[in-house]
């Protein structure tokens, strides 16, 4: 395998006296399907906020595609190829679904034409939202909102897609729907980090899983190894 696409080296993040991430190190290879799991409050979202740039790491280094991005603002990282969806959808409420995709297309996807209409439509079709292109986000259902999050991240033309709990609260059939989309995107060569509580989904999807607990990396391995790991069981269920 070539150099890793994303290297997180010894990242520390503190909020006041609380250490949310304690020297977390992980490497994600290009084209990989990578799972990040851990109990609530274990630092998963903090970690990806540090990777995407919404938070600055206090210590450590983050290298993406050969570039040290540790000090870069989020929009620069997006342009380099890191895109994310939000756990709680944050659509641009005053714009249509189509125009929501226009923003990343114009600002990060290198299509400086007005909104890149054709490209946006293609992405919507791929995700299965094309029938809703002209609706405002307020008119979407929960799953459609999650799909919009993914579609908008895709419009940034990323090399790495971080999916932050895109399936929380969805029905079993809807989870399969989102999984199928993520598998398709991965097949197109996009590296995917999946943060998820739904074990069935994350274990089926991931080739490699890292487990966080209380800001520390406690395990890494294939889904099978993780399931059999006693430390992981302890983190989730207690002694």
């Amino acid at each position, binding site marked *: 395998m070539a150099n890793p696409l994303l290297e997180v080296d010894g990242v520390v993040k503190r909020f006041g006296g609380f250490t949310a991430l304690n020297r977390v190190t992980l490497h994600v290879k290009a084209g990989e399907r990578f799972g990040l799991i851990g109990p609530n409050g274990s630092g998963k979202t903090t970690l990806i906020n540090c990777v995407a740039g919404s938070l600055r790491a206090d210590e450590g280094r983050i290298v993406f595609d050969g570039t040290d991005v540790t000090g870069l603002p989020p929009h620069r990282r997006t342009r380099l190829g890191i895109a*994310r969806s939000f756990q709680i959808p944050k659509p*641009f409420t*005053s*714009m249509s679904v189509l125009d929501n995709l226009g923003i*990343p297309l114009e*600002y*990060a996807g290198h299509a*400086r034409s007005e909104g890149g209409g054709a490209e946006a439509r293609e992405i919507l079709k791929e995700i299965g939202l094309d029938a809703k292109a002209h609706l405002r986000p307020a008119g979407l259902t929960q799953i459609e909102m999650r799909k919009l999050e993914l579609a908008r991240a895709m419009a940034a033309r990323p090399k790495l897609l971080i999916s932050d709990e895109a399936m929380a609260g969805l029905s079993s059939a809807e989870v399969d729907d989102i999984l199928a989309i993520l598998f398709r995107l991965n097949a197109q060569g996009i590296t995917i980090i999946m943060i998820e509580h739904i074990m069935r989904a994350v274990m089926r999807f991931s080739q490699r899983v890292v487990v966080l607990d209380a800001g520390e990396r406690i395990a890494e391995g294939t889904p099978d190894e993780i399931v059999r790991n006693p430390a992981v069981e302890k983190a989730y269920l207690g002694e």
Partner: protein
Amino acid sequence: MTRMGWSVLVGIAVIAAGIGLASLRVNPYVYFAGYVILQYVVIATAWNILGGYAGYVNFGTPAFFALGAYAAVFLIRSIKAPLPVLIVAGGLVAALLGLGIGYLTLRLRGTFFSIATLALSVVLQTMIINWEYVGGSRGISVLRPSGPPFGSYVTFLFTVMVALAVVAVLAARFIERSWIGRGLAALRDNEEAAECMGVPTLRLKLFATTVSGFFLGVAGAPFPYYVTFVEPNSAFALDYAVNALAMPMIGGTTSWVGPVVGAVLLGTASQVATVTISSELNLLIVGVVLVAFVVLAPEGLVGLVRRLRGR
């Protein structure tokens, strides 16, 4: 011809119509009142570039307006600078202040940003009150240049304000329809999501605060020649803060049309009220109308028309 070309042409036509109206030499009050309404077109349009497009509500309009006016007073007193210089200088000084409050947006959002801008206005007024060279708290008289075109200086200032309003509106319209406007709309809707979608939010916010400040200062620069006596209470009047916010809200904040419609309607209404009822009633009328719109038509007249058309 391009869309931009057409709008510039319409702008030139409006300026020509203004000059035409000025050369008719009708009742002087028309120019006197027209100046105030046009000044509010500039103020409302400038405010909306930050408040409407980017969603950062500025309560400190008087600070920018007065800064433009006092920059003019300073230049008139020190070097008797001609009007075009006053306008450009007033705009630039206010733009610098705008750039300053742009950096505030790094730490302050929503209500906290608004409170900071309000405080800024108070601080600046205190500084002006203690600066004797530009009149201090007593105020200062300004002599108008002699021999203005159209026979009277107010009529001349009216045509100047027509031109300034056209430039401000064209600039706002251009920003709104460019990639800058789309980026501002994204950060207004959700700043974190916009940043993560590749929008350089800080740079766009600095742009919006600077351009907004520039045109607020531009609106204030001819003020000393209009009133001929400048003192802090009139330059920092609450009216500017309230109207700058109320006019775009009433017209609609998401499009350049909104502030223009709001300024013309509310500006005209308050001029009529001043003549027929009393000048004290102005702010009351503005307040009542604003509350009514916030409750009944939160997207302003532009939004109301769009909704009635079923869009």
